[in-house]
């Protein structure tokens, strides 16, 4: 796709090197806080990579991906609570704190929920699609707020971080590496999709759905598949996020979260492999740096976001690396 080593590749390599090097150095220097910060970046980037499949490749502006992010988080939280209390889960499953099981459940649940949501939402297009995904997310949000068994509005604490065989996840560094590995897996998946026939059809459905239909591919199935895959990946990130904070609350489901996920992608550059990572890095570091200086960091975040939307259409990567894609 690109001849030689492009500037985008260079920048991406630097970003990845930074993300790996900083936590290692911070651990060596005894500053676990920065490891946690990097973990946060990795997890948010994973969620945004997931959304990027639907939004960047498929052009499906889902304003409800927080629903899946939060669902994943609640899976982690509910498993941990049940395991902590020794109470069995509904349908007689024994609760476990093993992360791989939780991840699988989170992914499967998000897929199952995304299937009907996607099938209904994809009947609409444009503004209506944005609004109906928002409506579904709000539905789940209010459900979580008013369901008292799992904390309701107050959220749910995870007393002991869930475990992964062979790793001490309570330590910041192993947990970071775990998240980093999953982020890498997610990005590889994104890359595979982008290069596959499915990805080509998906991009075609964004650029011209009528033409895609004319060559014999129904856009609906392609879009639905992309939406479901995207939801599953975001759900996985949600489970990781809940474990990172050892807390899950309805705010993970709120429409602000959906907005933030979109912001991550736009900041970095939509439809680009490393866009979400760049966006997440900028966003988290920004939140941290400005949050230290002033309480009003959201004010400046808003200004910067406005600037990016109005003047830097390819996001930060696009600004630095030049335009490499169409549409």
């Amino acid at each position, binding site marked *: 796709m690109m001849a030689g080593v492009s500037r985008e590749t260079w920048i991406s390599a630097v970003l990845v090197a930074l993300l790996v090097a900083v936590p290692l150095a911070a651990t060596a220097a005894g500053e676990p806080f920065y490891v946690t910060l990097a973990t946060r970046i990795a997890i948010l980037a994973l969620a945004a990579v997931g959304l990027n499949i639907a*939004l960047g490749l498929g052009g499906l*502006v889902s*304003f409800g991906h927080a629903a899946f992010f939060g669902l994943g988080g609640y899976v982690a939280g509910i498993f941990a609570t049940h395991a902590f209390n020794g109470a069995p889960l509904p349908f007689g499953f024994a609760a476990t704190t093993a992360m791989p099981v939780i991840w699988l459940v989170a992914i499967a649940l998000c897929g199952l929920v995304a299937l009907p949501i996607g099938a*209904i939402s994809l*009947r*609409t*297009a*444009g*503004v*209506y699609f*944005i*609004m*109906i995904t*928002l*409506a*579904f997310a*709000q*539905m789940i949000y*209010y*459900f979580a*707020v*008013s*369901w*008292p*068994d799992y904390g309701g509005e107050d959220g749910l604490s995870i007393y002991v971080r869930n475990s992964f065989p062979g790793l001490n996840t309570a330590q910041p560094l192993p947990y970071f590496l775990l998240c980093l590995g999953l982020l890498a897996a997610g990005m590889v998946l994104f890359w595979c999709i982008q290069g596959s026939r499915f990805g080509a059809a998906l991009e075609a459905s964004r650029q011209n759905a009528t033409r895609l239909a004319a060559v014999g591919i129904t856009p609906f199935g392609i879009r639905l598949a992309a939406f479901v895959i995207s939801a599953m990946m975001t759900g996985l990130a949600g489970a990781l996020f809940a474990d990172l904070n050892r807390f899950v609350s309805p705010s993970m489901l709120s*429409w602000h979260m959906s*907005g933030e996920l*979109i*912001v991550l992608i*736009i900041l970095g550059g*939509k439809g680009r492999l490393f866009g979400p990572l760049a966006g997440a890095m900028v966003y988290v570091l920004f939140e941290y740096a400005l949050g230290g200086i002033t309480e*009003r960091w*959201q*004010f400046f*975040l*808003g*200004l910067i*976001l*406005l600037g990016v*939307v*109005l003047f830097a*259409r390819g996001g930060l990567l696009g600004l630095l690396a030049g335009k490499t894609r169409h549409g």
Partner: protein
Amino acid sequence: MLFLIAAGLTLIFGVMGLINLAHGSLYMIGAFACAAVAAATGSFWIGLVASLAAAAAAGALMEVAVIRRLYERDHLDQVLATFALILILSEGMRWLFGSFPLYLDIPPVLQGAVPLPGGGQYQLYRLAIIGVGIVVAVGLYLLISRTRLGMRIRAGESDREMIAALGVDIRTLYTVVFALGAALAGLAGALVGALQSVQVGMGEPALILAFVVIVIGGIGSIKGALVGAVLVGVVDTMGRFLLPKLLALALPISQANSVGAALASMLIYIVMALILAFRPRGLFAGQA
């Protein structure tokens, strides 16, 4: 009340083809302006005028500075830019007024209750809000279908280039429309401010409800906004009241209450999803 916000939003949405997430912020600005001016002057009515002026001015400013660049862009950019505006405006208001809620008193003329036929009592102020809603609905209808400005708005809606070529200053026209929508939001904010506390973030639940109303009613249709607002209001209230009772027939009381409450708060979104699933362009689409 809901109709007021939704009408302003649908005006912007339908006529200008723009998703304005910052509409809730205009609503908030209206409420704050009313509360601040009413506290300073002691008169609710001056506050009400101030809220209209402040929201319209803020709307016009927003349109000229930011929104004007967005008409040609896709919806994603519009969502993001106005999302950024929400962040800016919410933090800005917190900066100006602090995070403590302000309070507004209901003007003395409108305090008290009226007896309803059948023996119930209804607050006069709420009745007045309903009255304002009706006046605005009729006013908007007349404005859009009978006046020269309304004719231009409708023309701008169907063909931007054509009306510009005919010598109408489309940029100013859009600014005016945007300010009008903003003023309606501000009015709604001020009226509601007397019922609830005025605080940062009050606009967001209202905004989402307004979107539900518009999407149900069909984007750009004032009639749709009215019907949608009534539908959402009735469904929401009846759901909260009736669902727990219905479920109590099948479940133990405590469980029925919590499940019912959960379902009731989801109900309007379920209604919206159902309507969109069967009529993907809303109930009164086609006029836009």
